């Protein structure tokens, strides 16, 4: 592959919200990509940036911040329940480092029941009654493992493939590779519930990619996009007149100066003006019918995970490439048996509704829905029997995918009887990344960006597509 060049000046001409099928946007975008892609883009609409036929066009990526316990939700381990309270077999933990656990370690069995669900019969916790209803859509990877065991570094690792700051996020890579399919919205939108995750805005940052590819946070309070609202006293008409004035003077400058950057700026002012209408319309979920609100458990006017799930559907409906939901509050060092049910009540119904809703609208085939966290929880008890919790666990935890190109109703990989280590089909975070890109029609080895003399990839020097999750 010919080296791609990181050209700040060229990049500056690139719009935040590019079209894919046609026009200058597509050319500008795809000039970033390798020539093979450029040819595909200009030759056939809708296939910009793909290395091969995509299964999914869009992603809704849910990250549960703090790391929910896989042992309470997805991993049924009767042996762990049977040996509850007993010391951990020495060979499992010899030489291991833990964030908090010290001294003699004891096993902790779950208090929740698991049920076989759907036709596939995959097992889910009884704390997830709604997701159980769409179990046949899910492909659960039970053996994902990461390299970091503290929140912020592990969040960075999960989102950027690197445990420290400075690399582009998965969503940015996707935006860089595939662009947007909506003229009026960003390619990569982020929605939060609760506090910002420990690693902060860098989780959706663009690293060394152009900042046009960073995730744009849509907010449930105040302006949905920062600075979207006109100042008080300025209505749509006044705003139009002001923009007209700016544009007229900018056009005169363009003639005099000849810098195409001015032409881009003129376009961006028009787009900004359109966004002032399109984004509030998008964010206004109150017009959704009541049954939709009921299905999701959404409550217009308040920020909630359910509202964000509904917004996610509205975003993918409008062609937003990568929608990311963060939900905080899953760090159960103590109170795991009370905390998990509480958090499940907040996310179980809306996620199931989202999947069912996408399916009913024919969007699920094109949309990849992902559940992840930065790591999992230990099979061992943290704290005392009064305040039962689990510590951070990086060696095996669960993520799932549903939708476009995913073989629903499957599980991939198996851990030992205590759920400590993978014993079959271990999946590294990089494999997970490679698989997501693959489903989007992108070869993770060929999605590269040259920086500091090196061709960087999301998957660095690793990554194998997890074939077993593919339909």
């Amino acid at each position, binding site marked *: 592959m010919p080296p791609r060049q990181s050209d700040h000046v060229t990049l500056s*001409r690139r719009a935040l919200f590019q079209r894919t099928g046609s026009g200058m946007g597509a050319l500008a975008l795809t000039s970033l990509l390798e020539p093979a892609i450029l040819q595909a883009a200009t*030759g056939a609409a809708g296939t910009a940036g793909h290395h091969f036929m995509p299964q999914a066009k869009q992603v809704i990526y849910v990250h549960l911040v703090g790391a929910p316990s896989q042992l309470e939700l997805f991993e049924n381990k009767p042996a762990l329940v049977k040996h509850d309270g007993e010391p951990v077999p020495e060979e499992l933990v010899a030489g291991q480092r833990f964030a908090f656990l010290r001294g003699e370690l004891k096993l902790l069995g779950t208090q929740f029941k698991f049920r076989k669900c759907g036709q596939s019969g995959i097992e889910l916790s009884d704390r997830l009654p709604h997701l159980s209803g769409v179990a046949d859509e899910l492909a659960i990877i039970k053996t994902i493992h990461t390299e970091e065991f503290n929140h912020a*570094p592990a969040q960075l690792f999960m989102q950027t493939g690197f445990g420290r700051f400075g690399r582009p996020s998965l969503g940015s890579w996707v935006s860089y590779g595939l662009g947007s399919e909506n003229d009026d919205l960003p390619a990569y939108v982020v929605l939060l519930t609760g506090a910002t995750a420990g690693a902060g805005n860098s989780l959706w940052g663009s690293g060394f990619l152009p900042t046009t590819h960073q995730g744009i946070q849509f907010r449930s309070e*105040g302006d949905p996009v*920062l600075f979207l609202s006109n100042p008080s006293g300025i209505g749509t008409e006044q705003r139009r007149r002001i923009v007209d004035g700016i544009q007229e003077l900018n056009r005169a400058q363009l003639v005099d100066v000849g810098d195409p950057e001015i032409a881009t700026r003129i376009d961006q002012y028009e787009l900004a003006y359109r966004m002032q209408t399109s984004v509030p319309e998008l964010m206004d979920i109150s017009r959704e019918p009541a049954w939709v609100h009921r299905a999701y458990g959404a409550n217009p006017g308040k920020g909630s995970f359910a509202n964000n799930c509904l917004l996610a559907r509205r975003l993918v409906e409008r062609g937003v490439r990568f929608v990311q939901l963060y939900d905080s509050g899953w760090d159960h060092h103590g109170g795991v048996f009370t905390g998990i049910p509480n958090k499940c009540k907040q996310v179980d119904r809306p996620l199931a509704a989202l999947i069912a809703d996408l399916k009913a609208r024919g969007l699920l085939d094109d949309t990849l829905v992902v559940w992840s966290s930065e790591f999992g929880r230990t099979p061992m008890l943290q704290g005392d029997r009064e305040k039962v919790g689990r510590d951070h666990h990086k060696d095996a935890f669960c993520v799932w995918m549903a939708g476009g190109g995913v073989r629903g109703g499957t599980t991939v990989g198996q851990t030992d009887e205590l759920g400590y280590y993978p014993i079959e089909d271990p999946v590294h975070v990089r494999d997970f990344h490679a698989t997501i890109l693959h489903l989007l029609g992108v070869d993770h080895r060929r999605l590269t960006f040259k920086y500091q*003399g090196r061709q960087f990839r999301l998957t660095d020097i690793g990554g194998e597509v997890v074939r077993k999750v593919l339909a």
Partner: protein
Amino acid sequence: MPSPRSAKKAVVTVVTRRGLLVATFAISGPLSFCAALAENPRSQETRLEAAAVDYDRDVRPVLARSCFACHGPDEQQRQAGLRLDRQDAATVKLDSGARAILPENPGTSELVARIESDDADVRMPPPETTPVISPDEQRLIRRWIEQGAIYNEHWSYVQPQRPPLPQVRDREWPRNEIDYFILARLESESLAPAPEADRARLLRRVYLDLVGLPPSVEEVDRFLADSSADAYERVVGSLLDSPHYGERWARPWLDLARHADSNGYQRDGFRDVWAYRDWVVAAMNLDMPFDQFTIEQLAGDLLPDATLSQRIATGFHRSTTVNVEAGTDQEEDRFNTLFDRVNTTGTVWLGTTLECAQCHDHKYDPFGQRDYYRLLAYFNNSPLETEAGDGSRREFVGPKVTLPEPPERQQERAQLVQQRKGEKQRLDEMIAGALAEQPAWEAQMVAVVGEAETNLPPALVAALAVEPDVRTGQQQKVIRDHLLAERPEIGKLRTEMERLDKRIAALEPQTALVMQEMAEPRTTHVLERGEFLSPGEAVRPGVPEILHAVQEDGHADRLSLARWLVEAENPLVGRVTVNRWWAEFFGRGLVRTLEDFGTQGERPTHPDLLDWLAVEFVEGGWSRKAIHRLIVTSATYRQRSNVGAESHERDPHNELYARGPRLRLDAETIRDNALAVSGLLSPAIGGPPVKPRQPEGIWRVTGVVDNTYTVSNGEDRYRRGLYVIWRRSSPYPSFVNFDAPDRASCVVQRPRTNTPLQALTLLNDPVYVEAAFALAARVLRECPDDATSARARYAFRLCLGREPNDRELLLLCSVANEESARYADDHQAVRALTKGHECPAGIAPVELAAWFHVATILLNLDETITKG
């Protein structure tokens, strides 16, 4: 655009790419590049045939791209014992009996046979891996071997020599040495430079470049009226002497230093680091020579009799992020900090990406893993920067210095402490008084309890039932708390004292983070695969073998490293530094990859100019201001940038410099400029960070950290962007929209994007709305009786320096007049718009509303946020 000397090669590459395109289009679906090539119509004959092949320029990039991963410096990855990056190794007889390269004999060189083979089993590189070597490149390698396979060293590792000035035909144009190099190149391309920019535009350009602020209308007028030959040079001199020069130039340096006011990661708490920022500003204003500037920042603490200022300078490497998340492995985090220090040092002073060598020998550049850990050893002797705190918390600690305080501050604190003492005494007296009455009060209480149902708390009732001399501590406390709670004056005094405590805490002496050596140095090991849990061979501090030797007078410490970096023999530091400055002025470096001067980086577009500047810089005493003066007084810099579309089409990136620079301003400067032209800007320099207005709810970090954002009072809201508090997890939002980084890691060059979020920021961010009102009010206040056109002209000149042309003036006047007419009959609209904004005395609010429209238009112009 490729470098001049490799221009022809690039043509070849482009052709090759087209070939690929055709093939790819014909075959749908996944395909390897080999398959593509098989169908690739032969590319055109190159124009290279006759030229001498230069290894570093022509051959190395091909081998580096396609071969070095397995046949390069990395011993671990080396296949078949073959190493192609050095002549001695590449020409040796291999186990197979063949030689990869036999100089002057391409026909018997195995390398040639392999890369040209049609047999997939024989062909190199293996089809499934790295990019294939194109037929043109194959011919190039053939001819290089034919010509003797001479390996010359990579250009940037060879010490620069001052090149002679090139011959130029137009002797009139050059104003200084820079111009000879630029003009020679232009003439070779049959191009002429653009005429000099008009004076008002030029003045604004040089103001923004040297002090980051626009010239006032008076300064423009004075300059326009000054017909002396050296008028411009005198302006440049005064700008270089301005205290705002250091503020302007601190910004890119602080990006390199990843300087921020918070720790980063989870629990993104705050740290006191502003003294380091002020040190940078002061050092730049003093034009501290760059060698000293380097030494003080990397090792100021190790200088003999280090001054406080020299210790504060070492804040450079205390700016690393630190994870105080509760479960952090301290040693792992310490190594991450060390890695960052090594990598940042490599990027800033050597223009080299050392990071690869953290885990293995560098695959492309001549830096081994041992080199990496020898460098790391220089930094491995500083004390821990986190420690376990209460419970599961970790605390950010590490060496600090206490800053001198102004006497008023000391006095104020002493006075508050005194006041608190008095109040404490009063409180004690009140409590004693209350307790004296306890028996009587208790009797009363008991009576109340005895009488009937009470709503007294059960704990109190229970405690009262116990005989006084057998009550537990807890019971005594319950009674006492209740007694005291009945005296409101006690509660009030306590609240007052808490308030005092806060004020006293805020006046505690301030500190700065510094570097410091431990008495007992740590041993540094090479870390296998970069894993801190896998220490290998122990290493002593040392510098990369490929570069000049380090001078050690018995010590191998940060000071010897710092001195080594700025020795005149260092082939990189001068080039890397002047190149970064060049990019600040012109938008891109003479070497486009500012962060990488290694073999994978770009070659300079004007190699002789780069070397000339580097030598001038080092030999001229490392003066930043001298180089800046040279650049801004050159004819190259003084060219017009408004030269029409044709010039942009011919040279989109202005690589040949046939026109002046035209670049969007950086985030902070856009805000500074808006505040300056509207008259809001505070000129105050230095001090703790400030908090201008930002939308609610931006700070919402996890964990035990204060997320309250209290907007600064008074002029602190209008300080320059340099002083705005920088929280890594959520930097100031309008800066983020204009490409400011999170400052969590070293950033050499910010991108320059052009997005709708930028339009929304300038149109609606309350800071810019306020600036637009202030600009409108300023125009109305300063031109109270003038006609619309005079006001419009003044407003325009405030923003852009130059005079408006007729069309521009007409548009602004018609906006003012039409909006005045609209608002004249609509007082409600006027009130809605102008509410909360000050209207100058004697000016009708209708006018303010109308001129707000004009001001908003002006502040949003592309030209306003551009240096042109």
